[in-house]
């Protein structure tokens, strides 16, 4: 390799921070010998700095990254099922009596079909029913009540989600940051549950209406952030630190205490109420 080509390769390695000490020394020596190469190096560095300063790729967002594993897992499961079907169908194909069995099956179905047809033919035919009277549109008097009950269902669903969030957070708080691997499957199952709740709470928060649920919405909002962070945990060198940080965050926000306060404020299921006997006055 010529000296120019070698220096050029070294320039690229150095610009991207991939040159070792020895290579950097050789590059410095080469640039000291040739001012035009030194100038080119400065220009290339400036260009790369500009390109790196511009956000070429963008970030698709937290929700996207959280969804990668669930999508891949669904794909793996679907492939597993397809593989099982393929193996099963291969076994059936390999069965030497298959064409004969198909013939027998078709013959049996024909006989059964004829038998059913004859049996039905002997039954009395019911006389035709008169056409149903046309329905006139009327105002529905329970509209307000139905809307109120919809909200009750949402509150119930929220309470159920909060109950599950409480146990997921409690399980997470019980994890020893340095020894998460001791109960690895349980740990990942906790991340999975956090992911499901993350999706669920976002929908519920959008459905809760009315000022009186403001404090519930605020809590759901904070839970969504924490559960999203838990679900997004990645196994790397900072994992223990990340677990500890989130555990502190959960404690600082008093999430478990606040969930229990809400559970106390709505002690009974609201959606089991019956409709009033009289229509609501409008």
């Amino acid at each position: 390799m010529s000296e120019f080509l070698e220096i050029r390769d070294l320039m690229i390695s150095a610009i991207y921070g991939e040159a070792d000490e020895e290579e950097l020394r050789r590059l410095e020596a080469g640039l000291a010998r040739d001012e035009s190469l030194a100038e080119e190096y400065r220009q290339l560095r400036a260009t790369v700095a500009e390109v790196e300063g511009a956000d070429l790729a963008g970030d698709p967002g937290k929700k996207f990254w959280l969804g990668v594993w669930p999508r891949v897992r669904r794909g793996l499961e679907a492939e597993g099922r397809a593989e099982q079907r393929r193996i099963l169908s291969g076994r059936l194909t390999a069965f030497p009596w298959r064409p004969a069995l198909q013939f027998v099956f078709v013959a049996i179905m024909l006989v059964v079909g004829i038998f059913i047809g004859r049996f039905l033919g002997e039954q009395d035919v019911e006389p035709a029913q008169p056409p149903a009277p046309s329905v006139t549109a009327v105002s529905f008097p329970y509209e307000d009540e139905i809307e109120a009950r919809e909200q009750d269902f949402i509150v119930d669903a929220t309470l159920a989600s909060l109950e599950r969030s409480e146990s997921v957070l409690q399980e997470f708080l019980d994890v020893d940051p340095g020894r998460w691997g001791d109960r690895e499957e349980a740990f990942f199952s906790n991340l999975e549950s956090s992911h499901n709740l993350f999706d669920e709470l976002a929908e519920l928060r959008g459905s809760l209406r009315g000022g009186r649920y403001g404090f519930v919405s605020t809590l759901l909002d904070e839970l969504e952030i924490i559960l999203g962070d838990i679900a997004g945990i990645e196994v790397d060198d900072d994992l223990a630190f990340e677990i500890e940080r989130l555990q502190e965050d959960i404690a600082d926000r008093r999430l478990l205490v606040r969930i229990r306060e809400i559970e106390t404020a709505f002690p009974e299921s609201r959606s089991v109420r019956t409709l009033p006997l009289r229509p609501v006055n409008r």
Partner: protein
Amino acid sequence: MVPTDAELVSRARGNEMGAFRQLVDRYKRRAYYTALGIVGNHHDAEDVMQESFLQALRSLDRLRNPGGFCAWLLRIAYNRSIDLRRRRLREVSPDGREDGVELFDTIGSESAENNPERSMRSGEIAGLVMSTMEKLPESQRVAFALKHIGQLSIKEIAAATGSTESTTKTNIYRAVQRMRKVLSPLRIQGSGVADERVS
């Protein structure tokens, strides 16, 4: 203790879902950005990433060096991305010519290239870089994109593209030179970007 790739691959071969998950979490960003660097748009990159993981995970038994999972995955993502890009090019340009065809979701536009003094904002630089990238020969475009969008090391790019490190450096060098020509009119004098130090 964070498990190594070789440990995770070995456990994943035993169909352990936790190991699959850790491999996916560890490399999802690199797979996504590798694909994005070549296909140029989010939806295709997402599809390539997912399909690459499925292909890699279902054929783990064929991976001879379990510690080389990352390079193997990136190679799969690279091949799938190149296939998809060629398919997309055939859709928009049936004769297969790349001239004038832009697959990237560019932020900027041709007008930015013609009027470089207009703005120095990073969005416009990004647009200019993207549109210039589309005009580069494939080997240079891929090497540059995998470096700047895929954030791969030179060694990883060489492994993914089946090339040598020296050829990869040459391709990146030529692409950066082209960028330099396009961006130089935009450069603000004395911006402090240039640095005389080597490291």
